[in-house]
């Protein structure tokens, strides 16, 4: 079997006596959409925070692209090719869309400790930023301040920012949260497009969306891994339904 893109071994994070993430071992293969689902409080967001380097693991290991990153800071993990979006849109409200994606794209420049040349002069960075905006359909709003966008557009902008960092793996925390039906569809279509040549790890509550896009699904309950496998298998699993899907009215 090919080496997985991302792998965790017995990953645990405790807050006091509570183990929010408890001994999670999972493999994320290259390409495809890997969804993480589970009831509220299952530890899904904590897991993403651990993977992105924002939270320190209490024990266990995280290996990304064959390198151990358990103790790595968020900036190092990002530079290795992992991008991250948040549960609530985390853009820079006082900057324009163009400036937001520029900041994201600039992070891939050799160095930003450049003092004398104006920021607009680097064509490569500008091109990458423009492309990310275009991929998300925001080109016409490039000069609008991020804080003035509709919430749906802010989510799009956030994805554009992540794309501008040219990630191999995207961690997406509830990308559809707070969105209406149409906006949700737009994001979903965008994600399908993005997933064509990248790997996605997706935390989501919307089951229809999850099963319309995911190739593999991991189910978490109370910080532990209940089951993981191909999307269809999970969908059909009685255990999972009992633990989670059964609580939801279809």
């Amino acid at each position, binding site marked *: 079997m090919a080496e997985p893109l991302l792998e965790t071994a017995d990953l645990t994070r405790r807050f006091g006596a509570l183990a929010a993430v408890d001994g999670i071992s999972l493999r994320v293969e290259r390409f495809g959409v890997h969804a993480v689902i589970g009831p509220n409080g299952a530890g899904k967001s904590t897991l993403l925070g651990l993977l992105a*380097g*924002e*939270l*320190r693991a209490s024990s266990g290991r995280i290996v990304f692209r064959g390198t151990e990153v358990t*103790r*790595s*800071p*968020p900036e190092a993990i990002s530079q290795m090719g992992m991008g991250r979006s948040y549960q609530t849109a985390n853009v820079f409200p006082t900057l324009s869309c163009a400036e937001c994606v520029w900041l994201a794209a600039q992070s891939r420049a050799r160095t930003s400790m450049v003092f004398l040349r104006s920021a607009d002069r680097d064509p490569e960075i500008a091109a990458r930023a423009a492309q990310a905006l275009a991929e998300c359909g925001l080109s016409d709003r490039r000069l609008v301040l991020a804080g003035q966008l509709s919430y749906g557009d802010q989510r799009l902008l956030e994805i554009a920012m992540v794309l501008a960092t040219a990630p191999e793996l995207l961690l997406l925390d509830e990308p559809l949260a707070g969105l209406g039906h149409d906006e949700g569809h737009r994001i979903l279509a965008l994600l399908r497009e993005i997933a064509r040549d990248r790997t996605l790890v997706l935390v989501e509550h919307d089951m229809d969306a999850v099963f319309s896009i995911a190739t593999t699904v991991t189910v978490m309950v109370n910080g532990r891994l209940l089951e993981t496998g191909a999307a269809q298998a999970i969908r059909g699993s009685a255990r999972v339904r009992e633990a989670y899907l059964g609580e939801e009215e279809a």
Partner: protein
Amino acid sequence: MTLSLFALQILNGVESGLLLFLVASGLTLIFGVLGVLNFAHGAFYMLGAYVAYWISERTGSFLAAVLIGLPVMVGLGWLIEKLAISRLYARDHLAQVLLTYGLVLVLNDLSRALFGSEVHGVATPAALSGTVALGEAQTWPVYRAFTSLACLGVAVAIRQVLLHTRFGMRVRAGAVNGEMVEALGIDVRRLLSILFAAGAGLAALAGMLAAPLTTVYPGIGDGVLIVSFVVVVIGGIGSVKGAFLGAMLVGLADTFGKVLLPGLSGAIVYAVMAAVLLFRPRGLFGEPAEAR
């Protein structure tokens, strides 16, 4: 160093640490719960000392000075919170620093206008002016013993309030998560006013108690303030336990530093702070930073 000299330094260090704790505990809670960087805290110390001087000068009684002066200072703290500090809760650090810095300048000049810029002395109350023998060669002033015991008593009282009263519980909760306290529907405004006033009172009390030991002049608050900040950094913002340990550490380091390294004594305290920061950037008992 002889044993009794050593004991003397320990006692002095503990005493200055205890006084420092009074100031720092208020500062760390005001910071932890109100989220306000309060540069004016030292001014309360100074005003406390001035009030002690002024009242004891007129009544001949140090006790009267404390009994009258303390409520006055608490009231002043309450007033300042209502008029100025409350406007800082939503503001950033720059605004907080500059407004409280401005307050210090105004209050310093105010006391200069009211009391003049001469250095004043406050007489040690007669009942407490003896000395206690430490071994054969050293003695320790009774007043210092009294001050230490008084501060210790206040420290115990603070602990009782924080651990065993509803008010204390809310304060502790607020120190950890201010928004949560508000969400619980507790009247946060009143809590904050009381807390600030109490903090001001503690600082003023320290100033009053210290007045007979040091002279009283317009700038005495500044030095205390900065050292208090060091204590808060060492102990961790919002932690009274940390403030206590930090104050003891600083008090002892400063006292021993003056004796062992006279030329550099002023800098010792900061060296201690730097050392703590190297290993614990959030202080001994501060919340651990999440990101690496």
